[in-house]
């Protein structure tokens, strides 16, 4: 069970300002059914651009509903200029905190607000900039970079908690890590979890390592090595030239080839001669 604050619980059970403002001046919609949460924010402003009425509709978990409710309470009576300064952190503070896995609920609030204000001002909603990094939740590198700059996020899991990227199939974890390294500098502690390689990646890396680290030394002694197959973590190779008749070949295989492959590709690899 999630550790929700009393305030989250209270706003979930008795959400404020549910519904749609009629003839709204600004409308902001984010999320979708498939993503698991969505928010539609509508507001009306007076002649001084002060928000006179604001309502929300939310599909999502308790913290998504509470975050939306909190957002509308924060917005009431504010000018658009003041409203623009509201961030997801303000929503979290208002609610007395959110579980870290639920931070994206507050981010959704901020995004909907941004869209609703853009809608009011007639600023064209820009097509998503940048390249899509997380295909499952449609998050771009630009969004990830922005999140990294604005919040104290250090590992892939933090990014997932904030903007969902990486929360689906996990294919993009490597790319997210690159973005983290890029924005935060290399000295940020990496996630301990070893990267999972696809078979293709593994084969490529093995080939590269053979070419770069292994073949030159073997060739010096008149030998060579050839990659036959990769089956899971079993790397099947064939020794050529002088190596194929060398008595020390098994030692070369284990102490040199396997060691290098484990160092550069994956620690679980087992090299065998076929």
């Amino acid at each position, binding site marked *: 069970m999630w550790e929700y604050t009393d305030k989250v619980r209270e706003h979930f059970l008795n959400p404020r300002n549910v519904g749609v403002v009629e003839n709204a001046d600004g409308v902001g919609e984010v999320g979708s059914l498939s993503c*698991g949460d969505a928010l539609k924010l509508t507001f009306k402003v007076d002649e001084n651009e002060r928000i006179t009425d604001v309502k929300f509709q939310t599909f999502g978990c308790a913290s998504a509903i509470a975050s939306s409710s909190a957002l509308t309470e924060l917005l009431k009576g504010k000018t658009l200029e003041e409203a623009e300064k509201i961030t997801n952190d303000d929503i979290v503070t208002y609610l007395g905190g959110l579980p870290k896995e639920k931070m994206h609920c507050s981010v959704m609030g901020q995004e909907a607000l941004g869209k609703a204000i853009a809608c009011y001002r007639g600023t064209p909603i820009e097509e998503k900039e940048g390249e899509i990094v997380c295909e499952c*939740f449609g998050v771009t590198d630009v969004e990830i970079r922005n999140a990294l700059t604005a919040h104290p996020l250090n590992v892939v899991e933090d990014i997932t908690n904030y903007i969902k990227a990486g929360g689906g199939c996990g294919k993009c974890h490597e790319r997210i890590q690159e973005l983290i390294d890029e924005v935060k500098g290399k000295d940020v502690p990496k996630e301990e979890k070893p990267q999972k390689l696809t078979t293709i990646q593994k084969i490529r890396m093995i080939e590269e390592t053979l070419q770069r680290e292994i073949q030159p030394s073997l060739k010096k002694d008149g030998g060579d090595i050839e990659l036959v197959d990769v089956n899971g973590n079993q790397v099947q190779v064939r020794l050529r030239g002088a190596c194929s008749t060398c008595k020390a070949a098994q030692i070369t295989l284990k102490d040199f080839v396997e060691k290098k492959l484990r160092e550069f590709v994956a620690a679980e690899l087992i090299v065998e001669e076929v």
Partner: protein
Amino acid sequence: MNTIYFDNNATTRVAPEVVEEMLPCFTEDYGNPSSMYRFAKKAADRLALARQRIADLLGASPEEIIVTSCGTESDSTAIYAALRSNPSKKHIITSRVEHSAIKNLCEYLARKGYRSTFVPVDKKGMPDLDYLYDHLTDDTAIVSMMWANNETGVLFPVEEIAKNLKEKGIVFHTDAVQAVGKIPIDLKESSIDMLSLSGHKLHAPKGVGALYVRKGTKFSPFLIGGHQEANRRGGTENVASIVGMGKAAELAAAHIADENSRVRQLRDRLEKGLLKQIPDSLINGDPENRLPNTSNLSFEYIEGESILLMMDELGICASSGSACTSGSLEPSHVLRAMGVPYTAAHGSVRFSLSIYNTQEEVDYAVEKLPPIIQRLREMSPFWKQ
């Protein structure tokens, strides 16, 4: 506020009769069953009786029962036993809807030099058996398919699968954690080689389970240590819990008719009542072919965690396959494998009943749930009515 407990596939209330039989194991007959004196023999005798009762529930012999610490340990023991006793074979077949005890293990093994094949299921959650048989190879060490699905209650034809595999000489294991105690099982009449069960799903305490290993099945222990469990699982026996599981097995055998009549009727009453009153709601799984106690319903356009927390305010306990309840961002792998659309998967709720539930509880839920669903839908931007 009374608690209405509709989450018996998560865990169950320990039966009072079970507790009663367990208590003397702590304070009176507390000897180590392996010790030499008559005082310890009392504990050993209690253990033997428990083993006999578990065997009786399954239609097995007591020597075929290895007691473990939980369903997950039973599953791991079974898979590793098959792999270690056939070291040249590197292939495992399982289904796409297994409990994480099997699913995550097979995914792990696939990263450690083994090959894992995950058999797909259809819309009702039934496995594609042609796919299974087509993927058998000389390299296949074990096939593991669950008996009853924990989320939908859907029953796999495991006896038929076991029979076909026996002809081909391939070891078959079933995770029957949800099935044992809810449907009749007679292993004498089947070809199943190994079967996992868990105590706390059948009104015994948490922290105790068992693995059935058919006589003659090649075995290799998972926990290596003392001579306990006939050298098949080291570690001093958790006597009180095992005695509890034995008593629970005896009670389950006596209650199985009740499970399949009264509990089934309660489940159907709950399900029909909710489906009738709540538009855009549907059953996940195969209504004809599932456990008598389980109902997995989807309420479209709303999200499961919200439903559960609103129900919690009324004291009603259930589960959901929505992403927000799983701690991840993806909804249940079981519902997704069945092709349940996201719109329905996020709003899924599992009700799982037991013999301790009453008609009053069911009627209370049928009365209280529709307004909750309606309230959440009125908040949802996707609800258009």
